[in-house]
């Protein structure tokens, strides 16, 4: 059976051009980029050229970009690195209640070490309130960390406004941009952002490589101890293949961004419209928010998400769910709950992530099979009164 992959927010397929660009560094060009002999020179050049290319796309300096092992690692380094480096100045961090666990858990770990964290609530579109942000700032605030775009519902936060406030109060501003880079224009310097994280596998690059923009002058403590790679910010032998892959992936995305985001938005809107037409009592979460293209979170009342997911899996369709039974930690999605969806509805929430390889035919397949699947599950549900 053909796979209909509609979970591009979870991860994306590696683009063929990316794989091609990576292969020499997985085969003949295997030297450690930090080695001093000529055999390693090509590899070092490839790493630095990739750094220059990615930095140019983000309109930052090469000296401000370091490579990490993942989006999660970038967030850990940014949040904990800033917290530890600035703890003599203050111990208060402001973030949002709908951040990815890599930020939330970093904050919770810091709370155990004496830091105080404010988790700003969001409205039903998933946005934080600028007024509440301002009200939360104290003399001890050293970091604001707000994600660019939400992985579950797609909502884009008012980053520029937050950046302006952070700058005014001289507070460092970190943005987890893992769901934004490659999909929409992201220029941290234009937004007064001091640190910004991303990961290649969300934009058709390989898994196991992330990036972190650290504005020149920002003090940061290392979270990994070791050698002096990446300007002594992140020890560990650089993966040339992954770095080259990430640069190629970003280049491809930037070159086709306008067309692809248009396509994905259209397919997303089409899927939403048709499903709402054909399935009673389903609703689109954060429908009126400014969202990244391709992402839609849909709640189907009276039934549970993992059973919907498995029903679609029977047809080869891959999506993800916000239900407790489909989460690693067996808790319903904090994001869906955070936008005010009641818990029983949060359990019946599915996320579709449309990407550049998806087609209208694939959406039509979902539109054809999902209504029947939902109806079948509803007939079994004690919450559904026919």
């Amino acid at each position, binding site marked *: 059976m053909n796979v209909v992959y509609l979970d591009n927010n979870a991860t994306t397929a590696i683009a063929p051009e990316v794989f091609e660009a990576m292969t020499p560094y997985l085969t003949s060009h295997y030297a450690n980029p930090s080695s001093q002999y000529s055999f390693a020179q090509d590899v070092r050049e490839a790493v630095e050229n990739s750094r220059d290319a990615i930095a140019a796309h983000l309109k930052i300096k090469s000296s401000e970009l370091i490579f990490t092992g993942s989006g999660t690692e970038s967030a850990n380094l940014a949040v904990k690195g800033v917290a530890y480096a600035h703890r003599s100045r203050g111990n208060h961090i402001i973030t949002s209640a709908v951040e990815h666990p890599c930020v939330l858990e970093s904050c919770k770990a810091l709370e155990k070490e004496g830091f105080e964290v404010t988790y700003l609530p969001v409205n039903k579109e998933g946005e934080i309130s600028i007024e509440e942000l301002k009200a939360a700032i104290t003399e001890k605030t050293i970091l604001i960390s707000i994600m660019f775009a939400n992985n579950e519902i797609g909502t884009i936060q008012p980053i520029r406004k937050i950046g302006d406030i952070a700058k005014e109060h001289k507070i460092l501003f970190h943005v987890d941009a893992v769901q934004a880079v490659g999909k929409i224009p992201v220029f941290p310097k234009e937004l007064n952002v001091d640190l910004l994280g991303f990961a290649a596998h969300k934009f058709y690059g390989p898994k196991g490589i992330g990036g972190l923009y650290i504005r020149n002058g920002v003090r940061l403590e290392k979270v990994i101890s070791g050698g002096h790679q990446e300007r002594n910010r992140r020890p560990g032998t650089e993966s040339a293949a992954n770095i080259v892959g990430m640069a190629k992936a970003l280049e491809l995305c930037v070159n086709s961004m306008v067309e692809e985001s248009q396509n994905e938005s259209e397919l997303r809107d089409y899927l939403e419209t048709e499903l709402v037409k054909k399935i009673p009592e389903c609703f689109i979460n954060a429908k009126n928010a400014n969202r990244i293209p391709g992402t839609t979170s849909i709640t189907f009342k009276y039934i549970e998400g993992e059973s919907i997911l*498995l029903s679609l899996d*029977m047809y080869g369709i891959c999506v993800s769910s916000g239900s*407790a*039974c489909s989460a690693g930690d067996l808790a*319903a999605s904090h994001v869906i709950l955070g936008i005010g969806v009641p818990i029983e509805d949060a359990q019946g929430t599915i996320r579709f992530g449309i990407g550049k390889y998806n087609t209208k035919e694939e959406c039509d397949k979902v539109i054809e099979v999902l209504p029947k699947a939902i109806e079948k599950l509803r007939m079994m*549900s004690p919450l559904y009164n026919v």
Partner: protein
Amino acid sequence: MYSEKVIDHFQNPRNVGTLENPDGYGKIGNPSCGDIMEIYLKINSNHIIEDVKFRTFGCASAIATSSMATELIKGKDIHEALKVTNKVVMESLDGLPPKKVHCSVMAEEAIQAAILDYATKNNITVAVQACDSHTCGGCCSK
């Protein structure tokens, strides 16, 4: 992840529905756990379960275990039916992934609740006690 039997019971669940004027009725769970299970029993004067129906709000494991559980207790007398534990149900399904085992506990508890309901209404002693903590079917004990 799931065995063929689980997939079969998920795609073709047996005994879905309700019974009017059930002799025994049990409901376990709540939405915050993501699991709710209802069992309806028709029991004859010899305490044999003649018919059983279920409704479930829950994941594929919950649905499959409900379906299998109803199959296993049909035709049994109520005391025999109480021996259909979640372990028995899981084994009949060729096992569940470890993280999904808790979903099978609901089926056992819903059956117990339904039989206890019948027993209470008919002044019969059965080997199960009503327990105040059965609001979430134990699925929250992660």
